[in-house]
């Protein structure tokens, strides 16, 4: 790639990585799987980058149970490893994660990381939409100081996150889902290697009578500079009996929740239409997982 790199570092510890990032300031960028570097370069966003800090050798890998039914995904866990985790695939509440991993090609799943896809802050990416639907939290470290950032506050703009300069994501934590919760994700794409036209991730909780007591509806893809939480669609569903009628109401409401992008992948009108179809289908899939 045509970068003007002075050096490429493989730090052995988080501390060493932090020191490098502080030394280079705006001239350094963190890489893990590295699959996003090209995308930034072709957009002309790496003209100041003179050092890449490859954190892929740090001990930040693995998925574990946390708290009372939640999960913790360390930042360097690859997407392929997430796809294989029984802790996730056996729990319908985390169904949206498995769905989101059905789309990227093997070559990306094998190197792309949990932390990297979130840090990229690109609403066109699939897995972060699923994490948002599950109220995920980012754990980040800056020169030894840890902090927690809710994903809801994390995405600031296109390729812009709440991370401070030098701050490194160490894990994504998913809180314990409520009882009778399921989730689902759908992506509309032109081919396996393209970015999404539209993504929908939903989480649905119902009570014993079948009423929807809580839900999240997240939109990604061509919906603007950041992911969108579809609040009006959620409001149309919350408190209603979970089923065809309330899903149709949520679908009708979703058009008020986002400004559809118009680009070479699809027109804005098409995106508005397909958002309704996909909200309905994704909710139906989540409901079917509740058995």
């Amino acid at each position: 790639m045509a970068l003007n790199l002075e050096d490429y570092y493989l730090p052995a510890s988080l501390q060493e990585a932090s020191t490098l990032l502080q030394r280079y300031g705006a001239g350094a960028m963190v890489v893990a799987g590295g699959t996003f570097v090209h995308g930034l370069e072709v957009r002309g966003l790496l003209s100041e980058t003179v050092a890449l800090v490859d954190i892929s050798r740090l001990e930040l890998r693995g998925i574990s149970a946390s708290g009372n039914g939640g999960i913790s995904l360390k930042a360097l866990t690859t997407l392929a490893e997430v796809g294989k985790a029984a802790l996730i695939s056996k729990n319908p509440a985390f169904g949206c994660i498995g769905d989101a991993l059905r789309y990227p090609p093997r070559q990306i799943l094998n190197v792309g990381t949990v932390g990297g896809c979130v840090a990229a802050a690109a609403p066109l990416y699939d897995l972060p939409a699923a994490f948002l639907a599950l109220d995920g939290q980012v754990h980040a470290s800056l020169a030894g100081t840890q902090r927690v950032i809710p994903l809801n506050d994390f995405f600031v703009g296109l390729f812009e996150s709440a991370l401070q300069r030098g701050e490194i994501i160490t894990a994504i934590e998913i809180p314990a889902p409520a009882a009778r919760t399921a989730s689902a994700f759908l992506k509309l794409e032109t081919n396996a290697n393209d970015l999404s036209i539209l993504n929908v991730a939903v989480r649905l909780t119902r009570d014993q009578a079948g009423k929807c007591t809580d839900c999240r509806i997240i939109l990604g893809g061509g919906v603007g500079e950041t992911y969108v939480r579809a609040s009006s669609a959620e409001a149309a569903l919350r408190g209603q009996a979970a089923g065809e009628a309330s899903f149709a109401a949520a679908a009708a409401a979703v058009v008020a929740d986002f400004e559809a992008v118009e680009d070479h992948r699809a027109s804005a009108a098409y995106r508005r239409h397909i958002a309704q179809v996909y909200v309905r289908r994704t909710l139906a899939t989540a409901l079917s997982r509740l058995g």
Partner: protein
Amino acid sequence: MKTIQLLINGATHEVSIEADETLLQVLRNRLDLIGTKKGCDSGGCGCCSIQVDGKVVYSCMMYAVGAAGKAITTIEGLGNGGTNLDPLQQAFIEAGAVQCGYCTCGIIMNASELLATTKNPDEDQIRHAIAGNLCRCTGYTKIVDAIKLAATRIAG
């Protein structure tokens, strides 16, 4: 320039490279391992697929410095010393799965990971696995046939 050691097809190669050279560039331009093809050079076509530690990756998206010390396998590393073909290579010939041939090495490196991890994959699994590799000649039918044929032979 940086001097690094790359472990490719079981042999160690010491190369002096620029910090921003991708594995694809080093394989083709510095080591003359030209079985790995340069297509889109942006992670979209799959021609440059190789394996790193047994996992298929796009070599155009991986920096060579970052691959130091890892076990790299290219199409030249399949089979035995260039005389005995790998079951996948043999099956691609027999099934007529090669037309212009530009995508072939990448698809074989991808299918090689699939067959190492999945015994007798069905058609859906094969098609899903090679979704990140484009072929603009064959329409994929004969490629899928070839992978099935190799899978059957490997399973015995």
